[in-house]
């Protein structure tokens, strides 16, 4: 299926700017990272609300938390590992524990930084942030959800982590208000439920078409909020189809697969097949090759599901 494609970072920067220009509290922080995060329009039109801090990701979260105490809503975007793993403790203390109203956007998640290698991959970002109570984690699946998620993130009062992966983002869904914590039933079916999150959803949906061609009735649930997760739709799916498959461009350890297993183990034990990044180090290489290596291309997803249903 062909979709209209958007520049994900430009969509991010422009959407934040559209909201910020109507308010007087949003400020943009940069750690040598904002211009390349799609914020050139914001920087040009609202220079008074733009703060280049230099390469200092630990203190950047502190600066943001301090600005939040004094009434500002800081938005900070950079490569995912440098916004999550590196300043993790300050994410916990400054944003989680103190519930400061700062918005952190981890970009180039998954294997998006293909040729930069394991230092730059974002394969554990939401797994880490999920360990901090009361931080909202968003992983929009397409251009429409990204726009909605940004608006919801800026309206919400409290810390939010938003995950962004690909350079080109398809528009799969119609635009509608984004409801934090709500999963979406994309398609109903009987044999198996595939639960998918983030931008790999485009591959999931292509795999669903392949499965349908093989006569499999697939229920598809999109989970663009990782935390708080929509427990109800997961349990409902487990009860309805018995078997669940999760798809994510993230380690399955600590990722959506783990979350779904936690929920089903407590509420409705069923078999769960986790499709995602294996728990190991994968060196630099072309993006498509790595996606295929992890079994995240449509054909591999389809084959894994067929194997699971045997």
């Amino acid at each position, binding site marked *: 299926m062909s979709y209209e494609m958007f520049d994900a970072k430009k969509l991010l920067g422009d959407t934040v700017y559209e909201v910020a220009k109507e308010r007087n509290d949003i400020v943009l922080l940069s750690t040598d990272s904002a211009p390349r995060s799609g914020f050139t329009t914001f920087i040009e039109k609202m220079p008074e609300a733009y703060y280049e801090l230099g390469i200092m990701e630990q203190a950047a979260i*502190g600066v943001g938390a301090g600005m939040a105490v004094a009434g500002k809503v800081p938005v900070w975007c950079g490569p995912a590992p440098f916004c999550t793993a590196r300043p993790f403790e300050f994410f916990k203390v400054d944003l989680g524990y103190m519930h400061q109203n700062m918005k952190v956007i981890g970009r180039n998640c998954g294997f998006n930084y293909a040729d930069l290698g394991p230092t730059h991959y974002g394969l554990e970002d939401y797994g880490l942030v999920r360990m901090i109570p009361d931080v909202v984690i968003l992983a929009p699946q397409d251009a429409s959800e990204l726009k909605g998620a940004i608006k919801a993130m800026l309206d919400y009062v409290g810390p939010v982590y938003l995950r962004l992966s690909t350079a080109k983002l398809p528009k799969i869904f119609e635009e509608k208000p984004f409801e934090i914590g709500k999963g979406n039933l994309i398609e109903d079916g009987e044999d198996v439920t595939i639960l998918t999150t983030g931008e790999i959803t485009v591959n999931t949906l292509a795999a669903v078409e392949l499965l349908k061609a093989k006569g499999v009735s697939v229920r598809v649930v999109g989970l663009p909020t990782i935390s708080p997760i929509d427990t109800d739709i997961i349990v409902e799916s487990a009860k309805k189809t018995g078997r669940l498959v999760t798809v994510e461009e993230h380690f399955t350890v600590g990722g959506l697969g783990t979350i779904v297993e936690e929920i089903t183990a407590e509420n409705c034990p069923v078999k769960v097949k986790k499709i995602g990044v294996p728990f190991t180090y994968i060196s630099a290489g072309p993006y498509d090759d790595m996606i295929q290596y992890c079994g995240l291309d449509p054909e591999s997803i389809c084959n894994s599901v067929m194997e699971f249903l045997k």
Partner: protein
Amino acid sequence: MNVNEVKKLALDIRIEALNMMSKHGFGHVGGSLSIADAIAVLYGEQMKYDPQNPKWEARDYLVLSKGHCGPALYSALAIKGFFPREELLTINEIGTRLPSHADKNLTPGIDMTTGSLGQGVSCALGMALALKIQGKDNMVYSIIGDGEAQEGQVWETLLIAPNKGVKNFIVMLDNNKQQLDDFVEKISPLGDVRKKAEDFGWHAVTVDGHDVEAINAAIEECKASDKPGFINLETVKGKGWPAKEGVNGNHALRGPAFEGVEEVLENMRKELAAMN
């Protein structure tokens, strides 16, 4: 400045802090005593605050980046009426509003949770920056330790602050020469830290950190500058308890290590009475 009143406040802070930590049987005595004079100048002379309205918009802010010295700050807050003095004795009890490290979520008058070294001072910079861009003149103070200055995050903040024009920001270094394991000089010497800060673009001064008039003058000098201020407080860890001053093992005391504290407190109380 009413020098006698500020000196009395400093002594009162030492008494309350030592009393609460010894009654509880644990506490960061060394650092709480070394910052008592600086805290007294801040709460006795320099800072604007309203104990009845801790979130008063026009207040000045103190971020105690060396959050483990909460007892000194709690004592000042109690003496100034943010909460009853008796509450100081609840430190680290279940349900207390006074954990050993400063906590924004729990304690009236605390604006930033601290305890992880290096973290608070960066938060203080954010506060100063946000206040500045809103055209407000509230001051933001942050107290860091010399051991704490081994954290890279401290230097991230020291490097960027002067470039952001935050003249409403003063960092005070409690240079008490000691950290948990040993003397700072033996582990990772700070060198001429005033000069380092000056080279980074701060208005940097060194003063006797137990001379309240000198501390006050240094703050005034920094406020008059168009740069953020850096005050290197030359202090003695454990100041006020002669047997603990500048000796290894005075960072945090537990149980039997408090032996002799009653005599110290009695002497301090007599000294305070004589100042009235």
